[in-house]
Each structure stands twice: as C-alpha cells, then as structure tokens.
C-alpha cells in the first residue's frame, strides 16, 4: 500500500509566510488602532476613560427608561401610522418607477447607451445611504413626511430596479430568442418572455422592500423626515427616556410584524 493515509484540505492562502504574516498584521493593526496616540495615522483618538465614565450614565438612562411610558399613546399612534403610510406609499411608487429603470439597466434588452444611463442612475441612487438622501430632501422640502416619502421612493426604486435588472440579465436567453423568432416586437417580447418570468420575483422583492421601508421609515424620521422616528428623536432630545422606550418597543413590534407579513407573503408567492 503506497497510497497516503492522511489528507489535509488545501489552505486558502498556500504560502505559510504570507498566511501567518497577514494574520499577525491584522492583530497588530487592531491593537495599534485602539491604543490612543501609539502609531500616527493608525491609532484612533479614543479616550478610554470616557468609556468608563459613560457606564454609570448608561445605567442611569436605563433606570429612567423603565417602566416605558405609553401615556402619550396618541402621539405614538400618529407617528406609527405616518411611518406605515410613508412606507406603503413609497413602496408602491418605487415599484412602479423601478420597472422602467430595471428594464433600461438590463444589458440583454436595451442598446448600450440606454444601458449605461440606466446603470448610472442605479449606481448614483445606491451610492448614498437613506439618511444622507433624507438630509438632502429635508433641506429642500422642509421637515415632515414629504421628505421621508421621497427618500424611501428613491431607495425603493433603485433597490427593486437593481434586482429586476439582475434577474432579467440572468434569464436564459432561449426564451427571449424563441419569442423573437415568432416575429414578435419588443413590447410583446417584454409581455411574453420577461414579464411572466419576472413577476413572482418582482413581487417578492417589492414585499421585502415594503418591510425594509417600514424599518427605514423609522430611521429617516430621526433627521426630520416624518414618522415615528421624528417622535423618537424629539423624545431623546427632551430626555423623555421612558417615552423613548415606549417608542422603541413599538418600533420593534412594528418591524417584527412587517417582517412576519413579508415572509408570509413571500412564502405564498411560489
């Protein structure tokens, strides 16, 4: 018997010097960055003494948070409903706008110039986080749900559009070819080859986006774009921590319900 009796899987990085070198570098870098003023351009300016002083403050804040104060439930309810309405409106509008955007960004459907414009729009709208877009819209349109809805529309449109474009590009080319071979025009090809194959995924992604919009509607509120987030930010700045906890619990319930609903719907979309 000359065959070996032991076998080890090949390592991700074959060269041992490189492998251990990289591991040591990562560990060393982490240590250097966390110790203040140790290595220029690497160390972060972290005052660990402040971290220590923050702990009793955190305990105090937690103490003032419990029990949660639901007495101002009308304000809470108004905020929640506004968030949900913002999320719904933004999801629906985003779903509609995502269709032309997604089609324009699918290389197998449109000519190169259209594709580049479509992709550029997707890239630009996806570069910035919702909060940054929300800051812009609050500056332009003022505080309130208009800025929030517009933010979520932009985010939903680019998210659903991106998914749609990727899905269309991953379609087997045969179906498009077959429909084209019958002499069908471009719109009819969309109707018979693209739409039926894309519809369940599109609805699934849109429902997921509705769920995400409910979560994000609470965040964009913090910069003043309406909804429950705005109520939360106000309560923090007034040190109404017990009301803040009530809002946080409500948001948790809301997000949980949204996710439950989204999973339930997507489970049925097969």
């Amino acid at each position: 018997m000359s065959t070996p009796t032991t076998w080890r899987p090949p390592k991700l990085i074959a060269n041992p010097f490189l492998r251990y070198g990289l591991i040591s570098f990562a560990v060393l870098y982490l240590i250097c960055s966390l110790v203040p003023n140790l290595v220029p351009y690497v160390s972060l300016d972290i005052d660990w003494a402040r971290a220590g002083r923050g702990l009793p403050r955190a305990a105090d804040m937690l103490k003032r948070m419990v029990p949660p104060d639901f007495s101002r439930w009308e304000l809470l309810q108004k905020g929640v409903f506004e968030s949900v309405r913002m999320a719904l409106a933004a999801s629906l509008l985003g779903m509609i706008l995502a269709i032309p955007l997604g089609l324009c960004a699918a290389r197998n459907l449109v000519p190169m110039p259209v594709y580049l414009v479509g992709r550029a729009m997707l890239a630009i709208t996806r570069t910035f986080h919702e909060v940054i877009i929300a800051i812009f819209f609050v500056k332009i349109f003022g505080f309130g749900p208009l800025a929030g809805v517009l933010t979520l529309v932009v985010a939903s449109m680019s998210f659903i559009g991106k998914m749609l474009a990727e899905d269309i590009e991953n379609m087997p080319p045969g179906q498009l070819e077959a429909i084209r071979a019958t002499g069908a025009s471009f719109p009819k090809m969309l109707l018979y080859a693209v739409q039926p194959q894309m519809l369940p995924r599109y609805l699934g992604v849109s429902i997921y986006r509705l769920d995400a919009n409910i979560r994000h509607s609470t965040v964009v509120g913090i910069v003043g774009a309406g909804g429950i987030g705005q109520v939360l930010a106000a309560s923090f700045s007034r040190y109404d921590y017990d009301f803040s906890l009530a809002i946080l619990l409500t948001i948790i319930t809301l997000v949980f319900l949204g996710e439950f609903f989204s999973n339930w719907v997507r489970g049925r979309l097969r």
Partner: protein
Amino acid sequence: MLSIADLIKVYPTGTRALNGVTLKIDQPQVVAIIGSSGAGKSTLIRCVNRLIEPTSGRVVLNELDVTTLSRADLRKARRRMGMIFQEYNLVERLTVMENALSGRLGYVNFWQAYRRRYPPADISTAFELLDRVGLKGYQDTRADALSGGQRQRVGIARALMQHPDLLLVDEPTASLDPKTSRQIMRLLCELAHERGTPALVNIHDVGLAQSYADRIVGLAGGQVAFDGTPSQLTHQVLTDIYGEEDWSKTIRKVDKDDKKPKDRDALDRESAAG
C-alpha cells in the same frame, strides 16, 4: 422555396462559423443538417431568420431576400418561419395554451396579446394542434410542469401556430431520451409532410437523421461537405464530415417504422443478416 447563397458568418471573436454555405431547398422536404459541434449548424439556421446577422451572403425565402430586410419587415418575415429549439425555450411560467398562442404574437396587437384575447380562429387552431401533438387537455397546465418530450410537443405546436413557410429546427432531440427522440422526430416529420412545409433540422444523431430525413446535408468547417439522400451516407462521407472513426455501428439501414431493436447485439445480428 429557400435558397441560401454563399453565406458567411464571422463572429467578432474571429471565429469563421460559416464559410460560404450554398444550399437550395425547392420542394417540401425534411433536410437534416449533420456535422460535428462547431461546424456551424446552429449559426446556419439562426442566420436564416437573422437571430444571428450573417456577415455576407443571401438568404431568399419564397422570392423574399431576408438578408436585406429592415427591422419591421424582418419581423414580418420571421412570422413565416417557425423555430423549434433544443431546450424547448418555452416560457415556463406561462400555460401550454399561452405558449402555443405566442406563435401568433406577430399577428395580434399589443392589447390583444396583453389580455390574451386571440382571434377565435387562432384559438381553435391551437386546440387542434395541441390535440395533434398529443397534448389534448393540457391547455391550462403550466409549461414547467411538463416533461421534456411534452415540452418539445408544445414547442412544435408553437412553431406550427405561425403557419410557417419554413421550419427551422435546432437539435430537437438532444435533450431527450432515445425513445422520446424518435417519437418527436416522427411527429415533426409527419407534420412537415402533412403541411407541405420544408424543414431544416440540425441534428447530432446520425442514425435518427438517416431514419427520418428526406435529405441530409453535412457541414464541416462552415462549408457543405455532403448533400444527398440518407442512403448515400457512407463510411467515407461520415469521415469527410466528422473525421476518422469506426462508423460501422452508426450507419443503419434506412427504415421508417419503429420496430428496430436498439441494443447493440440486435444491431449486429441485423447487419450480419443484411
């Protein structure tokens, strides 16, 4: 009916898939195109309906020069050419009926297509055809619920819904088991003959081509290397098309009934007896 003259296709990668193919079909017959992978079979039939744009040469179908048509006229010309694919290429989430009716997409307007309101004549033709290809009662089944053989039957029905002047068939049996392959080839050839529609059929299986086709064209290196009847296929011809190999097990006696046993011993016995 169909005449292909000096057709050349050079892909952007520099591959010369077709190198001057000239071919004439002047009677309704089933023409099998054989040749090794990369010989240009798929390119040839896709150049006929210009799913692939030929580099030069002419394709003339019933006095109409397909190669010079504008986009809109090309769509009109494609309506007269039914295509059948190796992977069936049905739209899987649509029903059998919608897939069959998609053969009429070139004739209905957008809203008719959108609302699935096809003219009564189309609907009745579709039912007849589904019945004819052996899928009676399947009209509401979704295409992804069908077996491979059944999908190809829908593919055939879709192509025939176009009332084509020409059938372009790309490896109709390559994804099917041997028995289903024979059934599909038989159905295809029967329908082509019944309707007097000529068919260009790309096929890998030389035995099937010999059993069912009226005429065989061999492609090698993007050119026609053989053009003749199934019985003219000899050891030498297959060597010209595919290269040197022991062809004695491949060449069969032409028989159109399906009684031939398929196992090797039986084939040997038969060739010994003949």
